[in-house]
């Protein structure tokens, strides 16, 4: 009787495991092994914060480094400034940008603008041996969705949208990079020229009139950013109300 029970138990267990295997999602065999291994080793934390009413903080100091924003610079509430970031006067950083100065310094010069969804990062060291900070000088327009990493942008430059500037690249003054250009590491874009493409190649030199337009674009965007700037009060105080409320009710979110 006991033997029969043991036998049926074992049969049921194997039958169950077979059906369980078949019921798993249709992955290739290697991927399945990979996925289940990974699943076994994850230990989720019960107090992981899934939702923070404060959202993402705009200014994230890391250790000693505190991001500095000039008083008349417009930095959208959506932006993340972490580490050593300096946004100088008249500059604007539009929504969705991430400026991570955690390994090295990032500075946005006077009247420059970093448009939507850009990511500015600075590597620890640059392949050219020069200081690897990302420095954007005055009157520079950086188009939307660009990625800048440890590059130096000299005054009065336009960087097209969705361009990628890799470590150590230098864009000299009065030049324009077309949209979608990818500048390989350590490349210098000489003064007064128009470059485009992936990897970026020389297209033509800029006429004097075009060179004069470059700072005008930066100033125009600066004017536009003032409109956006005036929509927001210097800081919001709703978190004070929420904290008071939480304390009175003893809630911890």
């Amino acid at each position, binding site marked *: 009787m006991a033997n029969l029970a043991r036998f049926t138990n074992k049969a049921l267990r194997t039958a169950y495991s077979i059906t369980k295997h078949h019921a798993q*999602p249709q*992955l290739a065999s290697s*991927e399945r092994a*990979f*996925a289940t291994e*990974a*699943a076994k*080793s*994850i*230990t*989720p*934390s019960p107090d*992981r*914060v*899934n*939702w*923070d*009413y*404060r*959202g*993402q*903080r705009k*200014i*994230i*100091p*890391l*250790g000693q480094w*505190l991001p500095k924003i000039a008083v008349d610079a417009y930095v959208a509430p*959506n932006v*993340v400034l*972490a580490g050593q970031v300096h946004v100088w006067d008249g500059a604007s950083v539009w929504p*969705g940008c*991430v400026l*991570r100065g*955690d*390994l090295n310094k990032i500075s946005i010069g006077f009247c420059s603008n970093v448009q939507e*969804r850009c*990511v500015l*990062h600075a590597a*620890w060291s640059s392949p050219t041996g020069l200081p690897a900070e990302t420095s954007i000088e005055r009157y520079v327009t950086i188009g939307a*969705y660009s*990625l800048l*990493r440890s590059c130096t942008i000299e005054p009065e430059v336009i960087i097209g949208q*969705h361009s*990628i500037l*890799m470590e150590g690249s230098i864009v000299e003054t009065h030049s324009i990079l077309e949209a979608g250009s*990818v500048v390989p590491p350590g490349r210098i874009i000489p003064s007064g020229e128009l470059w485009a493409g*992936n*990897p970026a190649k020389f297209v033509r030199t800029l006429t004097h009139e075009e060179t004069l337009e470059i700072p005008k674009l930066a100033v125009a965007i600066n004017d536009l950013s003032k409109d956006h700037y005036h929509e927001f009060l210097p800081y*919001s105080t*709703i*978190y004070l*109300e*929420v*904290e008071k409320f939480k304390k009175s009710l003893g809630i911890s979110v």
Partner: protein
Amino acid sequence: MGTLGRAIYSVGQLIRKTGQAVDRLGSHLQGGYIEEQLSRHRTVLNIFDKAPVIDKDVFVAPSAAVIGDVQIGKGSSIWYGSVLRGDVNIIRIGSGTNLQDNSLVHVAKSNLSGKVLPTIIGDNVTVGHSAVLHGCTVEDEAFVGMGAILLDGVVVEKNAMVAAGALVRQNTKIPSGEVWAGNPAKFLRKLTDEEIAFISQSATNYTNLAQVHAAENSKSYEEIEF
């Protein structure tokens, strides 16, 4: 029936708007109303029954969005602004991997070739800023450059590198130890051993960096000091 349903819906809408207007009037009488809204952004969001499973050592930036059936292994980091949408299929991310700022990991339900693939990212992978990974497999210790776009069915093998700004077309296989670049992505050169060692080093660096950011981001209101 459709028009009746719509009519009822709009009546409900009117009642809600009236209610909100009355609330605003009351706050005015109380002396000024609070116009600001709290952030409703949910960092970890589950779609019905598919919930993300995230290891406790993982740094998920508050502005990131981890949605649906996503599993993230130990020591990985999901940086600011990234979106991992595991809503129509699964996303598996191994340990020690970092998905840098503004990156996107997703799978579409419909595909030109009809196959719908999960996105599987191995251990110690570095995915650069603003990369877009769509239904692809990235094996251990690979490096996806910033701004790269990996379409459906792409397999990036161990120790391979996708250069910055590359567009890797569907079902391309990037063999081990090679650098592919350009739009469309083509073979560029082979990786030197030094560079391969650098890839795993950079993954470790990022794990350490993530701890610093995690500590700062998780500070409560009283602890923030500046």
